[in-house]
């Protein structure tokens, strides 16, 4: 009875991950600085969920083709547009993202955006009429944002305490640093590419946090086990051994998840593309960080080797 057909990773690869830790740290620090700079310079392109925008109600001759309208609205360089059928077959609700700026400028810009959209629709869809246009507030109100942020911070704190309780404090420091690392770099991706940051992006980032934590705990579990097993070995050696022990699992799991996500990215259409791009990026970063950030930090924080906990 054959167990498996593929064995991707040679057993005991013995790759010297830990030796590369200085380069890895330098790389991570560069990425973080780059992300923060991009954030400071470009900011984040928040979607209509966060900024609010304009809402326009239109009426078409005969049943409306939502896909066509979505395409027209999307091609105008006005940011992402939400298109919804509205009661009857020939009524459509379009929402455009708010434009940046303040006061009268932004109002003029909004007017112009509305005019651009209206002209484009009238040119390309015969018989279209605009029934109403209105300013729309953000879906994510201030209270909601604060609630979400508090929740994430409390969750981080409790995860830290749990890992402290199950492992040692050095592990929780490492895990949380790796997590913060992943989140900053993923937000950096949004700052650099100016992809729209909307509610599904928030979900993607939360997913990355979950994934990265899972990955880190698996590596840590093996480190804990090996530290007890090889009391005589040098700590760097034990860390390296543990990373190599779990390497085939790390790669298999990342690979399966990435396969599913690439499918989502390739055929999921524009809405799912941003979402899956963030996830793919985050999973690569998350896998990297459990090997090159979370594990080597244990060397710096001098993990206690005589832990009697299980």
């Amino acid at each position, binding site marked *: 009875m054959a167990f498996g057909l593929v064995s991707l990773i040679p057993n005991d690869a013995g790759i010297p991950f830990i030796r590369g830790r200085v380069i890895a740290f330098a790389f991570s620090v560069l990425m973080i600085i780059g992300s923060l700079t991009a954030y400071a310079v470009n900011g984040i392109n928040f979607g209509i969920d966060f900024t609010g925008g304009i809402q326009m109600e239109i009426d078409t001759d005969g049943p409306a083709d939502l896909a066509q309208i979505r395409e027209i609205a999307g091609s105008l360089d006005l940011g992402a547009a939400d298109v919804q059928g509205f009661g009857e077959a020939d009524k459509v609700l379009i929402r455009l993202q708010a434009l940046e700026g303040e006061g009268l400028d932004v109002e003029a810009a909004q007017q112009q955006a509305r005019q651009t959209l209206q002209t484009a629709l009238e040119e390309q869809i015969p018989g279209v009429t605009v029934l109403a246009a209105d300013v729309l507030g953000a879906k994510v109100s201030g209270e909601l944002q604060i609630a979400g942020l508090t929740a994430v911070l409390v969750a981080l704190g409790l995860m830290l305490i749990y890992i402290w309780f199950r492992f040692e404090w050095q592990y929780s420091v490492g895990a949380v640093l790796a997590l913060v690392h992943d989140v900053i770099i993923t937000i950096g991706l949004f700052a650099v590419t100016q992809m729209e940051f909307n509610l599904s992006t928030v979900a993607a980032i939360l997913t990355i946090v979950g994934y990265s934590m899972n990955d880190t705990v698996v590596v840590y579990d093996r480190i804990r086990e090996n530290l007890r097993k090889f009391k005589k070995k040098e700590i760097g050696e034990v860390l390296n051994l543990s990373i190599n022990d779990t390497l085939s699992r790390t790669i298999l799991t990342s690979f399966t998840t990435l396969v599913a996500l690439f499918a989502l990215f390739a055929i999921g259409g524009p809405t799912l593309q941003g*979402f899956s791009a963030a996830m793919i990026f985050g999973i690569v970063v998350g896998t990297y960080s459990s090997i090159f950030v979370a594990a080597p930090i244990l060397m710096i924080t001098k993990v206690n080797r005589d832990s009697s906990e299980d």
Partner: protein
Amino acid sequence: MLYFSPWKIFLILAVVLLGILFSTPNLVPANERFEVRNGEVTSEPRGIWAFPLVPHNSVNLGLDLRGGAHLVFEVDLEEVKEDRLINLAEEASVALRQAPVINVRRPSVVGEEVVVRVARAEDLDAAWDRLQDLSQPVGNNALAQQGGFGAQTVAFTRDDAERIIRLTITPEALDEIQTRTVTQSIEVIRRRIDETGLTEPTIARQGDNRVLVQVPGEANPQRIIDLVNTTARMTFHLVDSTVSIDASGQGRTPPGVVIYPTERPGEPWLAIQRRAMVDGENLTNASATAQNGQPVVQFQFDTAGATAFGRATSQNVGRRFAIVLDDMIISAPTIRSPILGGSGVIEGGFTYESANDLAILLNAGALPASLTPVEQRTVTAGLGQDQIRAGTLAVIVGFAAVIIFMLAAYGVFGIFSNIALLVNVTLILGALSGLQASLTLPGIAGIILTIGMAVDANVLIYERIREEARAGRSPANAIETGYSRALSAILDANITTFIAAAVLFMLGAGPVRGFAVTLGIGIITSVFTAFLLSRFLVAMWFKAFKPQKLGF
């Protein structure tokens, strides 16, 4: 690890069966599960779905995936403005009564201004100075207060000949009141409609004074209107039974007593003291329960409310008190003994649904203004059919890729992990259908993550078995050790993530909560499928075939 006691086998099979039972409604179209009246699908199950204990709900798709009801409400800002003017008049009269007292005719609201008429001309300057304190910088922000450049909330004009000072609310202050009122209304509406945190409605400000509410699915729009339409200001007053009231609600009332309509047919009016014993703001919690088989609403006061209510009821044993909700007496019980614990029940001829709705309203707090529905429609999914189709296809392709990959990597063990994976998805679907949580795109992200984690659990176990077999253990021993050694990693990883899911659910709101629900459910089901189901399958296989080698 390879031995399963009969009760454990029973438990595993029972969970799998329950999952299948709860997820089957998803395979049957809604019009075959529910009664259809006038071409519309109602919420009454029919046929075999109507039997008690038969789950009949399918997964509730969220607004982005299915669309739903679209309602626009208008906030009555005139009323808020009037309230503000009345308050301002009251503040003015309090300020002028402070020593040294400045004699004025009672400040009154005339149109859009408060008019203060000073009794003696020589007091006009003093009154003018004192009234200035009623105005604050708009927005209360530090910059405006320090610099003093910011707009003020109240503007003053004086008419020396008439000895009159006029107070008006500045446009800036009105703007601020308007914004605040609409923002507060949005939060209250959210708490009312999304009480469980599972519905995921869209609630946003539209224009200056409107609120847009979209709720997923064919939910009864009238119920939403009712939930939003009530101000839900609840107060407790003593009843004055000495007043006789005629059929049209007229009667001679002593000062401080007013006549209110009631919801009880036998007693359409009651006279009550204008001053409330306790205010609804002191309520901390309300819930619908049953008492003697009747639906009632149970409530709990905070410390201040409990003290006030305790004092009022101790002094008035034998009298009645009225519970007033938005100018309507909903209940008027007799105080039989002092109510000191700060909790009580409202009996008001409720149905279970109306009791539940009242509890939701009381918990969500009062609206700062009344809202009227101005628009009501249905909307299609926010994502568009084309996108949903593409997304579904992508999920199926991704899923198939994972299944093929697991087969290729682990052969027969891949079959077990794939069965576990399918059961996992069934269980998640079943749980979502049972809980009636809205499934949105963020929710699907949660499912993808848990499926990833479930696959990961199996990979961890199988890799460990491989490793142990390579170290020279017999197949049975390798499987045993593989499972037990992988356990700590999987449990620690899943518990850590579950903690995050639980916190996100309790503290987060809206989409963050939707994500947390699917993630939390998914973690439980994937630990179950990886640790009980797939191990059970492996054990059965092992007993049947007794392989001598695991063949790496």
